[in-house]
């Protein structure tokens, strides 16, 4: 009996030993995860309820005041409008163009590699440097864009209201015009981002089984569109969900173009005052850590929401297991 108890006891201590070893081995990783990934978010969350400024020795709790400001002041209303305009414009167009370019490039064979490289160039280039190049091109008087548009003056193109207005008065100021500013940023976002989406779609396309197209042909899918609907589009389902989510997150994070074009404040009358720029301006430039943290938390919420939708879609809809 004593023997059994002794062996039982040693087994328990052995188990304990294993558990301790396991914890001690995971501890560094866990500690780093909390310290580097979770703690900053928690700190930002806590600070969003305060009026803390960097350098101050203390701070006061202000409750939900920072959040109330976000939903009451017109500056933040402009922030939401600019951000959502950008996301809603850039995501569908860059995903659509990426898919279209991928389908075209995929049908080409070897020549496709050249197109692939060209379309991918803007992705590889630094957006900040590219933004400066765009700024020159979009300059109202000496910029390439308006110079090119002026060529159309005196031709039949003047029948189009846009050209008529431009030739009689002046062409748009682009970056200086609050009606155009956000759209220019959107255009650059699409120009820069669709090549990346194309590459993701190309990877998705290689996994489509060739025999499925033959089966679709035998089943009577005559047009390219019918074959696309029956084979390509469903096969690209998981890729599309991923591309849309990535594009959304990237679109929410737009910052460098706006910082390069309007370092002093988010476009003419804050028409391009996107969330990332607001965080930078409030939290860093104006040292209003509380407000900056509140915008950050909201930002995190949007992105988290998108990621959750993606997970749900992938598990429910597009995984055909």
């Amino acid at each position, binding site marked *: 009996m004593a023997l059994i108890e002794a062996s039982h006891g040693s087994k328990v201590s052995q188990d304990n030993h294993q558990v301790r070893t396991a914890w001690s081995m995971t501890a560094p990783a866990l500690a780093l995860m909390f310290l580097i990934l979770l703690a900053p978010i928690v700190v930002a969350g806590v600070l969003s309820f305060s009026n803390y400024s960097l350098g101050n020795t203390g701070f006061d709790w202000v409750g939900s005041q920072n959040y109330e400001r976000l939903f009451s002041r017109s500056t933040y209303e402009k922030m939401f409008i600019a951000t959502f305009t950008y996301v809603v414009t850039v995501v569908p167009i860059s995903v659509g163009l990426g898919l279209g370019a991928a389908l075209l490039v995929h049908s080409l064979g070897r020549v496709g590699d050249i197109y692939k490289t060209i379309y991918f160039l803007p992705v590889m280039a630094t957006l900040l440097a590219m933004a400066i190049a765009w700024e020159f091109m979009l300059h109202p008087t000496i910029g390439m864009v308006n110079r090119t548009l002026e060529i159309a003056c005196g031709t039949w193109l003047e029948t189009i209201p846009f050209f008529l207005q431009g030739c009689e008065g002046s062409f748009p100021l682009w970056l200086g015009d609050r009606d155009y500013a956000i759209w220019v940023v959107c255009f650059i976002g699409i120009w820069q981002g669709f090549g990346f989406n194309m590459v993701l779609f190309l990877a998705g396309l290689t996994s489509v*089984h060739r025999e499925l197209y*033959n089966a679709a*042909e*035998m*089943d*009577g899918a005559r047009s390219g569109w*019918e074959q696309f609907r029956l*084979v390509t589009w469903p*096969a690209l389902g998981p890729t599309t969900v991923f591309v849309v989510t990535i594009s959304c997150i990237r679109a929410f994070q737009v910052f460098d173009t706006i910082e390069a074009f309007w370092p002093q404040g988010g476009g003419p009358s804050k028409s391009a005052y996107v969330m990332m720029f607001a965080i930078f301006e409030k939290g860093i430039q104006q040292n209003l850590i509380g407000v900056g943290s509140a915008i950050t938390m909201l930002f995190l919420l949007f992105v988290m929401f998108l990621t959750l939708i993606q997970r749900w879609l992938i598990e429910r809809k597009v995984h055909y*297991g």
Partner: protein
Amino acid sequence: MSGLQIDAVTKDFGETSVLKGVTLNINDGEFVSLVGPSGCGKSTLLRIIAGLETATRGSVSIDGTDVTHVRAADRNLSMVFQSYALYPHLTVAENIAVPLRMRQMSTTQRLPVVGGLIPGTGPLKRDISQAVRHAAEMLEIGALLDRKPGQLSGGQRQRVALGRALVRNPAAFLLDEPLSNLDAKLRVQTRAEIAQLHRKLKATFIYVTHDQVEAMTMSDRIAVMMGGEILQCAAPDVIYEDPDDIRVAEFIGSPKINILPLEHTDDGVVLLGRVLDWPMPAGMPHLMQLGLRPEALRLVEGPSKLRGRVVHFENLGSEIFAQVVLSDGDIRLTLRATPADRQRLSLGKEVSLEFELRSGLIFDTAGKRLRMAEVKTRAAKEVA
């Protein structure tokens, strides 16, 4: 009756010629297997019949109409693919319904919500689901209609692919190695089921396989292909017993046919240095090849035409295959023996082998059958 005609079809991929003028007439309701080693062009031929590949030269006609330049979707043929090629996002029922939806419904009728509002869509949809249920019942997959292909076993997927092929009434069924992804047991079972299905539907089946057993057991006729040509197209028993070419004789039959060199000299017919009492007609070439099926050889006591030593044997229960190395050379023969001969076969034992002259198949050195050389042996036997 009509059927399917393939006339002098050639196919070149760049410099390589995959099909070198294939002509084949398939009768209505016939089950024809295209069999041959991999790379012989059988799948390419099937794809040309289907319209998925265009022939370099030659023509394909279905029911007397030339369809050489008609695209696959308009040829009214069904195909079962080796990988089954089921649409992974559609349920079994939807998969089977695809050929009917694509052919019977317009593009607008197929739209998710709007389609239902167009007059005539409702009854059409009911007809389609009726046809799908009928096809599913015929293949005993009625219980699986709501599942996705990813949730099915290989055998079930294969049935769904068959269901998708037979849901509409095609002019012919084209099957491209449909059993190659199944395990051995299921393959035997499905083989019988496909043959039964053919009898029930009385439709034309063109079946591509590299497995001679599948071809032998299911077909009305077998077309043996090699190097881009059809060497022989005939009923399975004719292909086995009366091959035109040594390559056909070697490809069909397991274990492989035994080939021995035969010499026609002034003394008579010489087999491995032994003169045979073979009544050979005049004008036969000096060198020939003798083909003997494993079952044509039998074990005897005492003097015989062939002697050798047993080097290997496989006991399958109902029969025994023994490999014998002949003493007159380095030739290895396969012999089929009955279990009664079990005692006489042990490794290393000397055995005597005998065969009937009339069971020998004679080929020239190029591999063509020399039926003339066999005439007298057969006639002699019949007289006796």
